[in-house]
């Protein structure tokens, strides 16, 4: 038995194809991104080694830091919206009839492609025919905002469909975690006269703190690498007002063919995400995880 189940040849056969694939298509590329960042390269012609020039240029590139600031705002906003999702999940997990149907309805936008969502919300925000401004006009607001072409609100306008898209995803995660809490705990608290709010705040939330941390990490990483909706809806515009790191990198590489500089930004993003993930994990680490 042991001999057969530790046969090196079979283990290699079962492991190597997948391993080779992620090494070639994930791990080698992230190393190469760092390497290409040292080059002056248009993607087709010969590369010229220019040392840390690209990385130094990134440090003083106002457009990059503006895009990084927008990514950071998106992350803050996404973490903030987790509170909203958590609130809905607490309601949903409180022995509501039809909870299953509700959470499935909430999940629907998450199943759609970002391109379809972006195209749909571009119509929602259409200045004259979009459902948003038709509604605002009908309740008497005379000059409703030009959502996607006003530099002061475009970023906010894009946050809305992002919340809409991800709501169901986080709600089903919180819901599953809340449903895992043993009933006895809640009942004991009730007998002791605790209000639903006290039960939620003092008992339920601490018990699912592990999941909350995971979702914070997911929301932050997701935001820092966010791309699809913004690329389709505004392409970072108007005038860079909704540019994020990934859309800026994409533009530099695949439109201006500055592959060296684009790679440097791609590498920056990677390092930033790894550091931020580490910092969040460390900041939220507790010595003794709550047991139940």
């Amino acid at each position: 038995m042991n001999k057969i189940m530790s046969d090196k040849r079979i283990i290699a056969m079962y492991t190597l194809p997948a391993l080779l694939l992620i090494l070639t298509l994930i791990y080698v590329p992230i190393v190469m991104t760092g390497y290409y960042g040292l080059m002056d390269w248009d993607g087709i012609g010969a590369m010229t080694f220019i040392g840390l020039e690209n990385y130094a240029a990134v440090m003083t590139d106002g457009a990059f830091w503006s895009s990084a600031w927008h990514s950071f705002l998106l992350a803050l906003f996404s973490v903030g919206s987790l509170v909203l999702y958590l609130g809905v999940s607490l309601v949903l997990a409180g022995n509501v009839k039809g909870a299953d149907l509700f959470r499935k309805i909430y999940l629907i936008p998450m199943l759609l492609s970002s391109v379809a969502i972006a195209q749909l919300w571009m119509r929602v925000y259409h200045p004259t025919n979009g459902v948003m401004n038709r509604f605002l006009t009908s309740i008497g607001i005379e000059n409703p905002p030009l959502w996607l072409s006003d530099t002061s609100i475009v970023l906010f306008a894009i946050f809305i469909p992002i919340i809409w898209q991800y709501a169901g995803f986080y709600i089903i995660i919180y819901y599953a975690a809340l449903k895992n809490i043993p009933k006895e705990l809640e009942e004991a608290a009730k007998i002791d006269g605790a209000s639903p709010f006290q039960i939620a705040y003092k008992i339920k939330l601490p018990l699912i703190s592990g999941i909350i941390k995971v979702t914070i990490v997911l929301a932050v990483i997701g935001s820092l690498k966010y791309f699809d909706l913004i690329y389709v809806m505004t392409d970072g515009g108007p005038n860079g007002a909704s540019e994020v790191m990934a859309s800026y990198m994409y533009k530099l590489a695949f439109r201006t063919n500055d592959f060296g500089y684009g790679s440097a930004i791609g590498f920056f993003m990677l390092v930033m995400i790894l550091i931020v993930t580490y910092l969040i994990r460390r900041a939220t680490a507790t010595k003794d995880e709550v047991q139940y």
Partner: protein
Amino acid sequence: MSSNSTAVESSEGVKIGSFRLKITHLLLYVILGIVALVQLLPLVWLLLFSLKDNQEVFNLAPFALPSDPQWGNYARVWTDGNIGLYFFNSVIVTGSSVILTILLASFVTFAITRMQWKLNKLVLGLFMVGLMIPVHSTLIPLFSFFMNVGLMDHHLSIILTYTAFNLPLTMMILLGFYYTLPRELEEAAIMDGCSVHRMFFRIILPITAPVVATTAIINMIYNWNEFVFVNTFISSDSLKTLTVGIQNFIGQYSTDWGAIGATLVISMLPILIAFFILSNRIVEGMTAGSVKG
């Protein structure tokens, strides 16, 4: 909040308390209902304008039913817009990636969880770290790699990329299931003179069918909706998938609301149909895939 608390309070004869509880309960449903409405209304609006002509889109109230549903919008975009071809490409790419991903992920997960070797934890770690890598940090090297090996503008480039990037998540969902399989299963099989391959294909894969189904549907959703890789690696219109295809197509029809609506509805339909049939598996897969991260 729960029916239990209602029972406790009414048994104590606190009528006012139970009335208040009913109000709270109603309020909870109102909150949940509003959220559901917010999630659905943009889609309902989309469905409605996909069946209108521009005249009606501009003049009728946004949620008014079309007086004469323009099913022709759907027929028109299906033939004019290559939607049929994009659809077919999406099926090919999604289908191949899902099969390849599940097969490779099952192989590795089996080797890591059921076979005895020293480096298994290290290899597992390598796959799991893959979950954190941002796609954009790999895009330029992948672009130049596929260019060099001649896979640029070829379905294989996206199939392989989807497989690599979905392996970690797929394995994560499979792992829990594989760890719970009883050892006796393998012992009995090997006693009977079964080879490892035979055991894997005849016993292990069939037993893991439920969790494989879950990973399959999750993979299907992610691949069907993927945008960046296709947008970057595929340039021929005839090879584009639905997500990227509709993006280009809508650009040409920017003023024809009915055509845009119909295109979007067509692109969403397969996923929505799958959801109506398999919603439990989808919910399960999405929860499993994230919670363990």
